[in-house]
């Protein structure tokens, strides 16, 4: 027998003593952990606990196991939402299939639990939205799933919302980009699977009466198309609306949970055409990226916001100067020409009400609000003045951290 493990393999070492020479289906119940409400699998799947960690074991043909092992490993490195793979066991005696070992996703829930639990039963739409978001994210990354279903997805609560993770990568294919046909087929399969899975729950008396399986499944297609359009479409607008419209689009993408990798602006006599390249980022990615570019240390969401502003400023610089501007140059100029002036302008008696990055974020929000109302970009200066006069003073004094109060003297 041969075991292949991805580092850190220490925590998996405890698994070596398991009876790998026996078919999974015949393992003694005392070794296994009962995980209720699991999805449907074509293969034998068992759960074991070792040193406080739970592992999922799946028995499949060796080429599939190797394929899935490699893909899940790559997904993890790229920060794609998928279960974390530990390793595979191959060359088992009696021509037994290989076993793929993944870490059980802590605090995760299967659709069987979510749809049938009365507390969460009403959130069918949110679950489908979460699944759709996962599918869009994978498609953007050039991943063709080939088997998108609720069974192959795990859900986790994330500050009141859900996050979805890909659990089964057997049929997955990786390409630089994927064709519209592959996306359409993935969505078609997802619709059919989700419909069947909900029909199945209903037959088992596990689905609240107000959820119509066919309606939910049909809805998935439209939701996917709307989200895909939102994250990929090209927009055309007038040069004078450019700065705030770019910011608006980036903000909308962020609100949907997506990050923007690159912004491309092509100007012509009709106006500017905007193309955004949406990407999947790993946790903490923005904090590190912003620190690299500006030396600022802020929270993840704030970092995302500031990075968007840097990108939008860079596009503006490039357009104005008619030549490419390096990212690091744009970051530096943004810090001195855009960010620092705003922070320096905070009236002394209001310093510390909010973190500087949060102030900047709110100024951006405020500028968007004013521009939207005026139908044109009002510019940062006007927005800063208005914000410090009307918005920041309304922030409760109590939230000022002790360190800021002490510094103020």
């Amino acid at each position: 027998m041969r075991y292949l493990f991805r580092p850190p393999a220490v925590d998996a070492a405890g698994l070596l003593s398991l009876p790998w020479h026996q078919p999974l289906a015949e393992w003694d119940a005392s070794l296994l952990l009962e995980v209720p409400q699991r999805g449907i699998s074509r293969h034998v799947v068992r759960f074991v606990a070792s040193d406080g960690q739970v592992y999922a074991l799946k028995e499949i043909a060796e080429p599939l196991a190797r394929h899935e092992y490699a893909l899940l490993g790559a997904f993890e490195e790229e920060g794609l939402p998928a279960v974390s793979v530990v390793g595979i066991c191959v060359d088992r005696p009696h021509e037994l299939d290989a076993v793929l070992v993944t870490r059980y996703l802590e605090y995760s829930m299967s659709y069987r639990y979510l749809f049938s639990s009365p507390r969460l039963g009403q959130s069918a739409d949110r679950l489908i939205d979460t699944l759709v978001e996962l599918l869009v994210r994978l498609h953007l990354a050039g991943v063709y799933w080939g088997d998108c279903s609720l069974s192959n997805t795990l859900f986790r609560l994330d500050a009141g919302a859900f996050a979805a993770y890909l659990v089964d990568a057997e049929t997955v294919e990786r390409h630089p980009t994927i064709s519209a046909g592959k996306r359409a087929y993935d969505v078609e399969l997802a619709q059919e699977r989700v419909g069947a899975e909900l029909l199945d729950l209903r037959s088992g008396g596990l689905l609240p009466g107000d959820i119509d399986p066919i309606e939910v499944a049909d809805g998935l297609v439209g939701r996917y198309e709307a989200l895909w359009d939102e994250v990929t479409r090209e927009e055309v607008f007038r040069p004078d609306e450019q700065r705030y419209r770019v910011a608006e689009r980036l903000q909308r993408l962020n609100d949907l949970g997506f990050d923007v990798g690159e912004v491309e602006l092509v100007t012509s006599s009709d106006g500017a055409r905007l193309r955004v390249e949406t990407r999947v980022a790993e946790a903490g990615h923005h904090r590190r990226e912003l620190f690299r570019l500006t030396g600022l240390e802020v929270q993840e969401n704030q970092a995302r916001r500031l990075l968007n502003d840097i990108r939008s400023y860079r596009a503006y610089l490039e357009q104005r100067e008619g030549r490419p501007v390096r990212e690091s140059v744009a970051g530096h100029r943004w810090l001195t020409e855009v960010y620092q002036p705003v922070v320096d302008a905070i009236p002394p008696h209001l310093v510390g009400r909010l973190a500087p990055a949060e102030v900047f974020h709110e100024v951006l929000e405020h500028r968007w609000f004013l521009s939207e109302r005026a139908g044109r970009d009002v510019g940062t200066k006007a927005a800063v003045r208005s914000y410090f006069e009307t918005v920041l003073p309304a922030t409760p004094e109590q939230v000022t951290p002790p360190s800021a109060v002490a510094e103020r003297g």
Partner: protein
Amino acid sequence: MASIEMKHIVKQYGDGFPAVNDVSLDIAEGEFMILVGPSGCGKSTLLRMIVGLEDITSGDMVIGGVRVNDKAPRERNLSMVFQNYALYPHLTVFENIAFPLRLAKVPDDEVKRRVNDAADVLELHEHLGRKPANLSGGQRQRVAMGRAIVRQAEAFLFDEPLSNLDAKLRGQMRTEISRLQRRLGITTVYVTHDQTEAMTLGDRVCVLRKGKIQQVASPRELYEQPVNLFVAGFIGSPPMNFLPATISGNELSTPFGPIALDERRTAAVAGRDLLLVGIRPEYFEDASLVDEAKLPLGSTFRARVDVTEWLGDSQFAYIPYEAPEAITNQLRDLSRELDAEELRTQAIVSIDSTSRIREGRDAEFWLDSRKVHVFDPQTGENLTRDAEAGAALTRMATEDRVEQVEEARARADGSTSVGAA
């Protein structure tokens, strides 16, 4: 059910590499077409262009007379069979087959009719009311086929469906698929890298190499009249033996002695220098077991046997031979391209299982010279291919198919009228 026509289909990837290169292929209504070749030959890409998963760089894809290049997969109404089928534990076998129709909001009585018809073909009737938990492996696969049948798709498409099954279930499913296709008479395209699957399932087999069609013919034509070295080496197990040869008059001089050619083949190879002779394992025999009357139809030679394999009903002997370096290199390349492991400068010959030929000893063999082919070692072209004889073989297969499709239709009409009565 529909015909599928491909006209000058090209699939080029971003880097300019043509995965499929000018493929033209007509698949008749009700035909079982196999796309076969080693990995990287373009067979899966071609299937995916039929389904609509891959964009077509140029050329026309026509299904049922309609150009579908720009149609989404769903609009093409094709059925990919067995793709990751799942069985739903709370649904009965009936509903496990019916759900695609439920999702398409097909009326109840129509659902009932289609599922019952499918269950008849699949012999699943007695299970329809049960839950799927206790179905056997084969029955589960049949439920998956049932889903494909009730959709009434224009064609069935299979992409290496058996590659991950164990040997027993694989054999069983091969039989099931073949039986089902014959009974339904539905146009089927089946991708495999396994030449045994290709030979046993297809009405016609399309052999691909590096994105180009090598030959499209019935299994028998491929076997008996291969168009080139690649097809000859790919089709057949154990594979065809290739020996270096030179020609003088009507006689080939080979490591296994002289082989006489008939007039037609002599004319075809006249004036050539170095040649390759292709001889299938079963054209050999232990000379001591050959009937007196048959002996003059071939030649006899002595050779030292390296290894024998006795399999009960058959027996193989391995005979090494010498070949010039150019030929050895070429055969090695061919082996590599075919993902084969055989050392090609060793002939594998089939001898009667009662033969007493032993390892490490010299023995006398007989070689049936009537069916040998002669190839150009440079281009790989089969110089002695009899196109007419080949076409006749494929024609026979086509006649069989047409007859079977008609029977299937008659049966379907019959069951409908019974149902309506």
